[in-house]
């Protein structure tokens, strides 16, 4: 790791990270306050309809009975598409800017003329993910905790019980980051890298949703990253699911390492 290059990346990324973290914190507050007026008793009959139940399971990975109680509702912001979109957008933007973006802009030549191995350059400019992913996960947790303590749900749930979801979200974002870095290292155009990374992520999201309806999708659902991001399971078990964490960590490490191998062996074309 080269400190100067890491600092440069941090300097470039600071505002985007701050804004994404602010969004990740603000959304759970608004979302949980919106549930203050939610009528659980009357909604339960509707939500237990088979189709609606399947839909909930597709979106959350859990049954209505697990989701629809005041305690588990606190975990809902963590799987909400807005939070997923915010985290993924930041991670993909950061990862593609660091490699494909640098090559496309021509600034990669400045980095690659330094007396540093390509591995070191790679680690220095992508290492920021290790800072950014926990920050984003913590921001969501902070927002959820504030939303819980200031809203109607404060008597039935507390932010501390959600702390292990932060670990699961961090691992998920790191896996997404590793994947995006790999795609970025294979590309010389940032736009192409972004499209490819989002294509993979949306496929994973769709696979996860389809797995609730379609047995064929269920059989291959293990290949999607979101399969291993299950905040409700973490909340129910009172701790991180180790299998999920191991799978996400392995995906993050393998894809990041593969990205490094590609980056160290590839030609760097002129911008």
């Amino acid at each position, binding site marked *: 790791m*080269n*400190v*100067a*290059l890491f*600092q*440069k990346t941090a*300097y*470039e990324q600071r505002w985007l990270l701050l804004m994404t973290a602010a969004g990740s914190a603000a959304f759970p507050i608004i979302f949980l306050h919106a549930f203050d007026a939610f009528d659980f008793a009357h909604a339960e009959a509707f939500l237990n309809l088979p189709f609606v139940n399947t839909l909930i399971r597709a979106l959350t990975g859990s049954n209505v009975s697990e989701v629809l109680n005041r305690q588990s509702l606190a975990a809902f912001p963590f799987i909400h598409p807005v939070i997923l979109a915010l985290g993924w957008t930041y991670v993909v933007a950061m990862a593609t800017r660091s490699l494909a973006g640098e090559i496309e*802009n*021509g*600034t990669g*030549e*400045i980095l*690659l*003329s*330094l*007396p*540093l*191995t*390509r591995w070191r350059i790679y680690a220095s400019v992508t290492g920021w993910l290790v800072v950014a992913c926990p920050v984003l996960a913590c921001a969501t947790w902070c927002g959820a905790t504030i939303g819980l303590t200031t809203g109607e749900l404060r008597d039935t749930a507390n932010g501390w019980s959600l702390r292990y979801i932060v670990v699961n979200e961090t691992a998920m974002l790191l896996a997404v980051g590793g994947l995006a870095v790999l795609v970025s290292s294979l590309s010389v155009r940032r736009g192409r890298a972004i499209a490819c990374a989002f294509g993979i992520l949306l496929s994973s999201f769709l696979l996860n949703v389809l797995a609730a309806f379609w047995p064929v999708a269920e059989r291959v659902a293990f290949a999607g990253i979101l399969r291993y991001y299950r905040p409700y399971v973490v909340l129910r078990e009172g701790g991180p699911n180790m299998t999920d964490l191991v799978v996400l960590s392995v995906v993050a490490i393998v894809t990041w390492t593969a990205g490094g191998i590609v980056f160290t*062996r590839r*030609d*760097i*074309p*002129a*911008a």
Partner: protein
Amino acid sequence: MTRRGLDNPADVVVIDRLSKHYGATRALDEATFTMRRGQLLGFLGPNGAGKSTAIRLLMGLLKPTAGRSLVFGLDPWRQVKEIHARVGYLSGDVRLYRDLTGRQTVRTILHARRLSNCAEAERLAESLRLDLRTRVRHYSTGMKQKLGIVLALMHRPELLILDEPTAALDPLMQQVVYRELRAAAREGRSVLFSSHSLAEVESLCEHVVILRSGRVVAATSMESLKRRAGRQVSVRLPPTAKMAPDRPTEFVQEDFRNGLLRGRWTGPASALLNWLAALSPEEVVIQPPNLEDVFLNFYQSPADVVE
């Protein structure tokens, strides 16, 4: 310049049958030349000749398809760290971090090189009249070029690899860059200087490598090129001369009309004077070698000169 062994310590850069192909396109094709310590070497060729490809291979940005290159006796693809510590590089199209100021850019690169003394960078910026307080996004193309030159020179590297460093500079600033490069060469540092401007290379470099379509068509000294170019000679013969006189092999006749003989002399000056004296001319004009013709000849014809 002759092809020597790959381990001569006086050779800063050795390129031996180096090739880079992109599918059927041969960006560089079996290029061979050497560069000695303290040399100011001009790298000439038209656009697309392979200059930038050769430079990018030397910087380890590209992996060669075939052949070999050495910088300070090290492999540019495998030993980048050791080589780049001793090299200053300016790419052909300078791109910088837009959000940083000039000074932040200088400091970031210095720190990345584990250096802290900005004095040389400040001196260079002052010589080039570059304001380091401004953000790069507000720099003009010329100012970005200046900052690129500062970044390449500020750590006082043993070898400077500069891809068209004066392309976006005004003539005054070009002179400043030439002065810096001459000073570097006087200190025993080496400069590989790519350009498609003949006048620039002629005024600055002692040696030249000329590329055409990815091939080295000349790798020689400027003196040798000038000798090859020959002197332009115009001789007005007496009115009695109705036809061109017999001429020595060193004289290449280009025109003979109305008693005016024009051509190019490639031999020694004494032989020229002896021949002219025998002609009893009314008027003689001898012009210095026209390098432009030689270069155009290299660009257009398949003749190769490698010394």
